[in-house]
């Protein structure tokens, strides 16, 4: 089991209580100067099960058009056709930023990939995606939180003061980041006018309640970080990350993530969530409901890259969903819950320009349960590779603590630039 690090405990002790709160406000930021050097990781969770056969159309598969019918994306070159990746796969035409990154050698596309989960419940599927086990129950913490405990210290922005190293860009922390290691949360919705005196009194009131005092000190510290980020980016606190002017929610959330990660002492790891992928009816093809969602995701990823700016070369962004959708269109011009799907790894640190897919084909006989794309790659092989090559987590904790019982899922290699 991961243990709370001594640094986190001492920081909590330091911040608990009104006096400490006041003291922390007077310490100059220069003490926490960013030393640079370490890798950045952003995990984007697409909740609701993205249709991988729409996001990464396998236009070269002879059965694709017949199964996906009006939802299929045409071959590159045709009107509204796919953006070519190679002779078999393309990207949905809404994913122009991702395609640009592919051409620049910064995007790896995974296909016929799935978590170990083989049933079709969103909620269990998301649990498996996030808990890092082969089954939906069995632990209350997430694999990324367990990885935090094994992350090398020092060199990174947080190494000097033992601050929280991961942030969830939401009011609350999703399962993937829950656990013993301290993490913070920050939604794009600003909390502009909380009275300092009230906060000090609350810190006092919470002094005998560890649960509340830990959260309050985290919240106060994160507010300061966001203030700093707003100063750096030249935005007022009221507008920083508030979502105003951003074309969609994903972009607002991505912007918040990049601001925090760029701030002094900011986190190295961020988790973003986007929902709305459960396209059971009227999914649409090159245009329509899913196309609009994908365009929002694409713009969000671009906002993230733009926002991270000089950090982008050190960044890997992992985009994952709980499972894929049925190969055939259902009776309501949509798709039902499936199994194999796609995932993306994009960023300046990524050795991109590759499609990793041991393609099982969409022949009737090749489909899982006569309906789903058969997975040939375990998502944990991707997660492990990112933790190993990018975040430099040692092999032993990855195998024993982060992904127990995963010996069958060997880490991929060569996903990150040397």
């Amino acid at each position: 089991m991961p243990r709370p690090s001594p640094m986190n405990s001492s920081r909590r002790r330091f911040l608990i209580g009104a006096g400490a709160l006041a003291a922390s406000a007077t310490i100059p930021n220069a003490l926490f100067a960013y030393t640079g050097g370490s890798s950045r990781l952003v995990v984007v969770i697409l909740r609701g099960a993205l249709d991988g056969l729409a996001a990464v159309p396998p236009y070269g598969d002879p059965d694709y058009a017949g199964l996906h019918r009006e939802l299929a994306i045409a071959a590159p070159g045709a009107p509204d056709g796919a953006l070519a990746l190679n002779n078999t796969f393309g990207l949905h035409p809404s994913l122009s930023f991702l395609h640009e990154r592919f051409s620049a050698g910064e995007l790896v596309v995974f296909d016929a990939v799935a978590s170990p989960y083989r049933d079709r419940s969103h909620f269990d599927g998301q649990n498996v995606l996030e808990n890092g086990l082969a089954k939906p129950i069995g632990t209350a913490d997430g694999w990324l939180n367990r990885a935090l405990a094994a992350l090398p210290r020092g060199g990174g922005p947080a190494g000097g003061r033992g601050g929280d190293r991961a942030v969830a860009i939401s009011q609350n922390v999703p399962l993937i980041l829950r656990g013993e290691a301290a993490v913070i949360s920050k939604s794009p919705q600003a909390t502009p006018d909380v009275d300092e005196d009230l906060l000090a009194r609350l810190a006092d009131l919470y002094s005998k309640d560890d649960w509340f005092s830990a959260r309050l000190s985290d919240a106060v510290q994160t507010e300061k970080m966001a203030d700093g980020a707003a100063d750096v980016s030249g935005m007022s606190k009221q507008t920083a990350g508030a979502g105003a002017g951003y074309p969609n929610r994903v972009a607002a959330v991505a912007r918040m993530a990049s601001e925090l990660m760029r701030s002094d002492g900011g986190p190295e790891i961020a988790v973003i969530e986007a929902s709305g992928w459960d396209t059971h009816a009227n999914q649409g093809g090159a245009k329509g409901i899913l196309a609009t969602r994908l365009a929002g995701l694409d713009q969000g990823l671009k906002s993230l890259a733009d926002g991270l700016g000089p950090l982008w070369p050190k960044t890997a962004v992992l985009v994952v969903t709980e499972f894929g959708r049925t190969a055939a269109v259902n009776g309501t011009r949509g798709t039902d819950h499936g199994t194999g799907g796609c995932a993306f790894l994009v960023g300046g640190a990524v050795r991109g320009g590759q499609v990793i897919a041991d393609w099982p084909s969409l022949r009737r006989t090749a489909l899982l349960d006569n309906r789903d794309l058969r997975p040939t790659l375990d998502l944990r092989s991707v997660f492990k590779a990112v933790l190993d090559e990018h975040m430099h987590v040692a092999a032993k904790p990855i195998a024993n603590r982060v992904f127990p019982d995963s010996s069958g899922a060997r880490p991929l290699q060569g996903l990150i630039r040397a």
Partner: protein
Amino acid sequence: MQAEIAVLRFGLGAKPGDLAAATAEPRAWLLSQIKGPVPLAVNSPLAPSDQIFAGLVAARDERQKMKQASATESPDAKVAFNAIREAYQPHYRAQVLARAQSAALTMRPFAERLVHFWSNHFAVSADKGVVCGLAGSLENEAIRPHVTGRFVDLLTAVEQHPAMIAFLDNQYSVGADSTAARFASRFASRSNSDDTGKPKRQFGINENLAREILELHTLGVNGGYHQADVTSFAQIITGWSIGGGKGRLAGGVPGRFYFRDNLHEPGPKVFLGKTYTEQGQRQGEAVLADLARRPETANFIATKLVRHFIADDPPPAAVDRVARAFLKSGGDLPQVYAALIESPESWDVNARKFKTPEDFVFSTLRALNVSPAQPEEVIRSFDLLGQRQYTPGSPAGWPDTSKSWDGSDALMHRVLWASRVGARYESGVEPTDLAAASLGAYARPETLTALRRAATSAQAVALLLMSPEFQRR
């Protein structure tokens, strides 16, 4: 502490006088509330769902006409889009306001909490187009009349409510062998598209509603069913639809549940090893009746009730007691609730739930003895606190464990909201009296000290609302 537990944990938080009313017989105070339907506690003129639905359809038709009239997006199209929003937004706002007022004022707060519990169990999300104006209708029309009745009646009313049918896409789920599908294939040309160039629609099922009934409403995800059962159940409920429509689809009362026989997959079907030979609509109803008496369902419902009322990790003894009452009574809900009240685990003073934003807002309204007058007050509050009413996003509903609500950023939003509430509702009541009336014996000495030392009465209210004892139930 028993009165505090009854009022704070089982109810919606204490209004002045609630703790006194429950003190003598806390259990009897709870049991007296679960007799008969549970209408809204306020007299609110909410439109019925068929009327809301008809308004929405009319607005959509209007937009369609405008689209056809002008090839490009014209200012008229924008007007038409606003007309669609106008068709459902006022209903959403009115429903949200009525819900908050009812929570603030009801004298049956335990029954009201049960309504909220079932509304979340049978969740629809108002952020899906057509559902926006209908989510509150589902709660008021399908849940309130049956919350103290039999589970099977509650289940059937919910699955046949237009909000649920639309939310989980069942209205156009078509049996491949249905009259409509056979008619279409007989007259279909060989080409793969119709004369507008759009690919022809392939008739078939949509398994969304069937899967979620099994996974989320009855058996639970490990309830022993397989993909074949999901597919079969989806075929069984083909035809469960909404009245209205045009041309060959015209039929039924617009906006009300309507069984479309011509979309229904005919013939007997096997589900969970049993062959159902009923005809038409009755086949699905027979399945629901069987699902409602299965031990997996009893266990799933009991687990959720115990998690909601007692602890994030449901004590197995309490789950077992409630599940047995469910099975023994054939899903008679008052007997199920009574078993919950009789479980010793319910009265453990150390088992306290961290409030959801909904719990927090409603218990604040009751503590301050105020009822919101405008929907915007309620909507803004829930937007800020991250639980916009009727929008859990997924059919699983809002999560019911503290881990899903206890982020540091969420806490900061609660502080902000509490400080605004404090500034807005200066009650004139001594803060320590407010604490006594709303928390009773749960109020800790250090909280009372902090209230006495507060700089302003507004700050005292904020401190009370943010005290650990007020944040838990």
